[in-house]
């Protein structure tokens, strides 16, 4: 049953991600992206990372995409008839060369990583609870957390400055 759910949500994630390229309405593309993110959250949960799944829904689907949609509603983006084929250029094979090359590189790196680690106990999934994640974040990875926090603070100050500049 769990495997069935896993494969279902994988298919949903991939199909929704593909649909983003095809649809013409910008808001529909955002909706497909949300569906894809939710399916990914389900995958995280099934693979034993409930905290990651919750944050995926809360931050990506629940906060960032809401802001995306908010911007689209403020600008009231809808289909423009004469430019509706603009998106279709993504479907031509010629425009995929660079992306395919990068994907190949990523795949090779993954292959290298997987060949180094022992792969035998893949059948058993260990669930990582919130406490373990917290201990890792504020133990060995404390420096990374602080660095990310300072980066975000700098971005916030920059955004405030840029939004103030027009008013003066």
């Amino acid at each position, binding site marked *: *049953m769990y495997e069935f759910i896993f494969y279902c949500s994988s298919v949903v994630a991939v199909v929704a991600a593909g649909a983003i390229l095809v649809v013409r*309405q910008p*808001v*529909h593309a955002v*909706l497909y992206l*949300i569906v894809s993110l939710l399916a990914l959250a389900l995958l995280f949960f099934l693979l034993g990372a*409930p*905290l990651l*799944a*919750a*944050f995926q*829904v*809360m931050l990506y*689907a*629940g*906060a960032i995409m*809401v*802001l995306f*949609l*908010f911007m689209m*509603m*403020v600008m*009231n983006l809808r289909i423009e008839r004469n430019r509706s084929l603009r998106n279709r250029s993504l479907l031509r094979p010629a425009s995929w060369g660079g992306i395919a090359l990068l994907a190949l590189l990523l795949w090779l790196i993954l292959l290298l990583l997987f060949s180094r680690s022992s792969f035998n106990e893949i059948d058993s999934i260990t669930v990582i*609870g*919130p406490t373990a994640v917290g201990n890792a974040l504020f133990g060995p990875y404390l420096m990374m957390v602080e660095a990310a926090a300072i980066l975000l603070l700098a971005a916030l100050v920059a955004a405030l400055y840029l939004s103030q500049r027009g008013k003066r």
Partner: protein
Amino acid sequence: MSFTQWLLTFASMGLVLLGLLLIGALLSYGERRILALLQDRIGPNRAGPFGLLQPVADILKLISKEDFIPPFADRMVYTVAPVIVPMTVLMSFAVVPISEDEWLADLNVALLYVLALSSLRVYGLMLGGWASNSKYSLLGGLRSAAQMISYELPMGLALVGIVILSGSFSLREIVAAQELPFIVLQPLGFIIFLVCGIAETNRLPFDLPEAENELAAGYNTEYGGIRFAFFYLGEYLGLLLIAALATVLFLGGWHGPWLPGVVWFSLKTLVLILLFFWLRTSLPRLRYDQLMAFGWKWMLPAALLNLLVTAVLGLFWMEG
């Protein structure tokens, strides 16, 4: 899990779903009667004894209406949007523990799960407003998005204090840790949670997304019939969810002397719901800029202060 266990799971899910829908319908009747009482009116009293069958009459009327999609609307999104609101609320109820040994799911990230679902609920209002393709709806959808984002943040921060005190995200363990209800230890957190909860369910002091006097009916202006009923059901169930969560997180859930746990849980939830009805009759609607300023300039700093004090006290006085 065996086949019987799956069957049992689905059966209990169906039962809870049915019960919640019934409670949602009764809440709409209760609100109208209590508002009438507080405003010195009579309220609906014709259908059945004391008007108790009024929700049935309402639902029959809404179902038998023509299912109309405006020609200028985005058909797919217009159809999906009303379903999102009650669905996310109903899914949240799965982790709410009613008594010591009655709950549907004991997730170890239950609190985050509830917050995540409540942040998904805004899509129903936003997409409903956008898909209707009319200016009132669009403005209502925009307002609901801005409001949800501004009040979600202090709500989440206010709940971190609870997590520090109980040491767990699981709602069952949070209740089990409340020998002394957390409202005594976290009075500021309780107030912030309650205010943000009212804002998240778009109840009256904060019902800017459907402000009747300026936006017709806001995001649901173009909706009618059963789809409109879905939005309304979502609102009442959201109210029930906020009351149930406040009970579980701050008022000690099933804890209480003499009576069984379920009764205590229901009593506390009912008192909070009556409080929400009372607030609706007594408070005027805020202006939009007041709403945003209150959210960012008062609620957020208060929640941060609450978190700071709780964390410092927890660091020095709590063991383990």
